[in-house]
C-alpha cells in the first residue's frame, strides 16, 4: 500500500490489470506515466488522475493513485474542482481525441483559457476507439470509418494548432512509442505552472493502424531547444531535428500547420493562472466573523 514515504516504485503504481487491445499505445502511455512518477518521485497519495470516457479514459483505473473516471468529454471541469479545492494535489488528465476535441471541446477551450495547473494528456489515435471505429475530429481525410464509410470528408483538426490558437501557455507533442521523448515531455509539462497541453500520438492497432507509422521515423521532425524537449534520436533515428524556440508563438504556428509530424515543445509561456488568482482573491479578502453573517440584514 502507498505511503507518503518515498521512494515511489513502479510496482506500487499498479492498480487494476489494464484491458486494452494487444499493441495498443495506451499501454505505453500508462507505463510512461508510471515511469515519470517514479523518476520525479511524485507521491501517489497526492496525485489524482482524471479522465473522460474512451479507451484513454480507462487509464485512472490502472494507476494506483487517486482517480476519477468521469463522463465523456468533461474531465477538465472535474479537475478544476480539485485545483480550486485542493491546490496542493498533482493533477493529470487523460483524454482522447474524441473526448477532448469533439464532445469536450468547450471545456478544453476554457481549461486552456483559465490556465489552471494540470497536465493534460491528449491520447490521439485519430479515431473513436472504445465505441469501435467512428470518425474523430483528428481522423485523416478519406479514412473509412463506421460512421463515414465513404471516407471522412473533412481535413482533420490539428490539436497542436488548436491549442496554440486558443492561447495555451504550454503546448507540446510527443508519441507514446518514443519512450524517452514521452518522459521528457511529461517532465517539462509537469514543471510548467498552468495548463500543460500534451499531445500524444497514440497507436490504435485495432481500428486505425495507419494513423501513425511508428516503424519509420523519416516523417518525424523534432523541435529542439535548451528550454524544450530533446530530440529522441534513439526512438526515431531517421527523424529530422529542427531548432525551435518555444517562446516564439508565430514559429510555433508554422510548425503546427497541417498534419502532426513535428514533435517537441511548441510553445511555453508563463501567464496568470485562474486557480491561483481565484485562491489569492479569497486569501486576500478582508475576513469576517461567521458569527456576524446576518448582521447586515438586521432591520
Amino acid at each position, binding site marked *: 500500500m502507498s505511503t507518503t514515504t518515498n521512494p515511489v516504485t513502479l510496482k506500487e503504481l499498479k492498480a487494476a490489470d489494464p484491458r486494452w487491445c494487444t499493441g495498443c499505445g495506451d499501454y505505453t502511455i500508462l507505463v510512461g506515466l508510471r515511469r515519470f512518477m517514479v523518476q520525479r518521485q511524485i507521491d501517489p497519495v497526492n496525485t489524482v488522475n482524471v479522465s473522460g470516457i474512451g479507451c484513454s479514459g480507462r487509464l485512472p483505473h490502472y494507476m494506483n493513485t487517486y482517480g476519477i473516471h468521469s463522463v465523456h468529454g468533461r474531465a477538465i471541469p472535474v479537475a478544476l474542482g480539485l485545483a480550486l479545492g485542493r491546490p496542493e494535489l498533482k493533477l493529470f488528465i487523460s483524454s482522447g481525441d474524441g473526448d477532448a476535441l469533439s464532445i469536450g471541446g468547450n471545456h478544453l477551450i476554457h481549461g486552456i483559457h483559465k490556465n489552471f495547473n494540470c497536465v493534460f494528456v491528449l491520447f490521439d489515435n485519430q479515431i473513436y476507439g472504445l465505441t469501435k471505429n467512428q470518425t474523430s475530429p483528428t481522423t485523416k481525410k478519406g479514412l473509412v470509418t463506421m460512421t463515414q464509410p465513404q471516407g471522412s470528408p473533412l481535413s482533420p483538426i490539428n490539436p497542436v494548432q488548436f491549442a496554440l490558437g486558443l492561447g495555451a501557455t504550454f503546448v507540446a507533442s510527443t508519441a507514446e512509442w518514443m519512450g524517452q521523448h514521452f518522459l521528457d515531455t511529461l517532465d517539462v509539462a509537469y514543471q510548467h505552472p498552468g495548463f500543460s497541453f500534451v499531445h500524444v500520438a497514440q497507436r490504435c492497432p485495432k481500428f486505425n493502424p495507419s494513423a501513425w507509422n511508428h516503424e519509420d521515423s523519416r516523417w518525424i521532425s523534432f523541435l529542439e531547444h535548451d528550454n524544450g524537449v530533446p530530440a529522441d534520436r534513439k526512438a526515431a533515428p531517421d527523424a529530422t531535428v529542427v531548432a525551435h524556440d518555444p517562446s516564439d508563438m508565430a514559429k510555433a504556428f508554422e510548425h503546427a500547420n497541417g498534419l502532426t509530424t513535428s514533435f517537441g515543445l511548441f510553445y511555453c509561456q508563463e501567464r496568470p493562472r485562474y486557480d491561483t488568482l481565484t485562491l489569492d482573491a479569497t486569501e486576500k479578502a478582508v475576513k469576517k466573523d461567521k458569527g456576524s453573517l446576518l448582521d447586515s*440584514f438586521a432591520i
Partner: protein
Amino acid sequence: MMTRDQFRFDLIMDAGNGAQKAGDILIKGFANQGLYVYIEPMIPAEISPPKRTKYSMSGVTIRVATGELTNIGSLSELMLVEQEILLDRRLDDEEYEPGGTVILDMGDQKRSPATYDQAMARARAAGLKVLPLSIPDEAQQTIRELNGNGKNMVYLGVFTAIFNITLTDMNAFVSQVFKKLPADKLAKNLTLVQSGYDLAQADFSELFLSIPANPDDREKILMDGNTALAMGIVDSGIKLYSGYPITPASSIMHTLAKSFPAYGGIVHQAEDEIAAIGTAIGSYFGGVPAITATSGPGLSLKQEFIGLAMVSEIPCIVIDVQRGGPSTGLPTRTEQSDLFAAAFGTHGDATKVVLSVSSVEDCFYAPHIARYLTEKLRVPVLILSDYLTSVSYKVFEKLNLNVMENISDILPEILERFYIEALPESIEMVKTNQSIPGEVGRLRRVTGLNTDIEGTVAYTSQTNQRAHQVRNEKLHHVRRALKTPEFFGPSEGDLLVVAWGSSRGVLKEAIDTCHREGVSVSGMHLKMVYPLPLMLKELFSRFKRVVTIETVYGDSLKHTPFSTLLRSETLLDVKAVLSNATGRPLKPSQVVNTIKELSHVHNN
C-alpha cells in the same frame, strides 16, 4: 383613520424609475415600527423595456401586518400607479380588491388624455375608486433638476403619510440609503418626500391607515429567498460555489460573489452548467464541500453529471430555482414544475433526494440539511426553490446560526425544520473505501461504470443488482427517517389539502381563514418531496378526501407530478384541485374558495 391588522398594496412605475428602491425604503419604516412585511417585486421580462408600454411595468407589491406573514396574500387594496398604461396593464392581472383604491399620477395625461380616460373608466368599472395625483410644480422642477429622477420619492412621501410613519423617521431611512449621494442631491430627494407627504395630507387622508404593531425585542432581519440561500451556503460550511448565470438563480451567485471570500469561500463562474456541476463534483471528491445552483434549462443540462455523482458516490448538491417552463418558458414567472426532472431526470435508476423550501427561512437552512444528507448518503441532493421564493423578501426573526464545519455539527432544529430524524450512524455504500485524496494507504478510483464493493469495475449480474439495491436502500433510510409532515388543523376529518414547497404560506393562511370562518379542513405540507415519508397512506386515510394545491399544470386527464407520487404511494384518489400554471403564485383567497366549494360538495 381605519385600523387594520394587515394590508396589501402596490407601487407601480415604469421600469428604471425606482419603484423598487422606494419600496425598500418604505419597508424599513414598517419594520422600524415593529410590523411584519412581505414583498413581491414585479420585474419586467426585458432588461429596460421602452417606457410607457405595458412591458415596462415594474414595481412592488407590499403586504404589511401586525403578525408574521408567510405569503403575499391575495389582492391589493391600494395601487399607486405612475401612468395610465401601467394601470391598464396591472388591471389585467386581476389582483385588485374590488372596492379598493387607485392613486393615479396624472402627469402624462396631457400626452394621452384618451388612454387616461379609458384606463380610469376600466378601473372604475372594476369597482375601484380612482384618486388622481398631481405632482406640484416645485416638485416637478426638482425632478427636472435630478434629470427626471425622483418621482419615486414623491410616492414614498405619499405612503409615509398614508401609513402614519413620521417624516423624521422616513428622512433618516432615505438619508441612510442614499448615504453616498452628494448633500445637495440628497436634500432634493428629501424635499420630494416632503412634497408627497404634504400632498397626501391634503388629498388622501381618507386612505390613512393604522396597523397596530406588537413591537418586541427580538432582532429582525429582512431578506429574500436567494440571499438566504447564499447566506445558508456560507453558514453550512460549503466552500465552493460553482455556477453559471441563469434567471432566477443568478442572484445567489451575485450575493456570494460579494460576500463569500470574506468567509474563505470561492465563487467560480463556469463556462456552462455542465462544467459548473463538474467542478463542484471535483471539489467534493477532494473533500471540499461544494454546491451549484441553476434554473430549469440548467437542470436539464446537469442530468448526466448528477448521475455520475450518484454512481461514484461523490456528494453533490444542486439548487434548482424553478421558473415558469417548459423550455426557456417564462424566466421571470413562478412555477413548481421541475419536481419530476429533479427526481427522475437522469437516465437509469438514479437515486436522489429532492427537498423543497417553503419560505425564506427554509432557504437559509436548506444547504445545511442538503449537506448533511449528501455527505451521509453520498447521493445527490436537489433543493427546489422557485422564482416566487427567490425574489420575495420579508421581515422575520433573526435566525440562529449554525456555523457548521462538519455535518456532525448540524443543529437539531434544522433536522426538525425539515421533518427528518438523524440518519443511522453508518450507512452501507456500494464501495467501502470512501477516502479522499491525501489519505495514505486508501488510494482509490471512482467511475460511472458499475463496480463491486472494492470499487473495481464489474459487470456481473450480482454486482449490478447489489449496487442498485445499496443505492436504493440509501433512499429508504431517508424514508424511514422522515417524520409526520407539518399539519395545519386536526389530523382527521373530511378534507385534507396537501401542498409542497413555496405553497406552504398560502395553504397555511387559507386553512387559518377557513378555521376562523368555521369551515372544517386540514392542511399538510411536505418539504421532502422525494422520497416520501412512509406514513402518508395512514395519514391520508383519516380523511374522506385528499387533494393538492400546486403551481403547476394539471387537469382531469393529467395528474400533477406531486399528486402522481402521492397516488402511487397511497393508492388514494388524490387530485390537484388547484393546479394552474399561469406564472403567478396561488392566492389564499383562491384556496379558501376552493376549500369551501369542496366542503360544500361534501356536505351535500
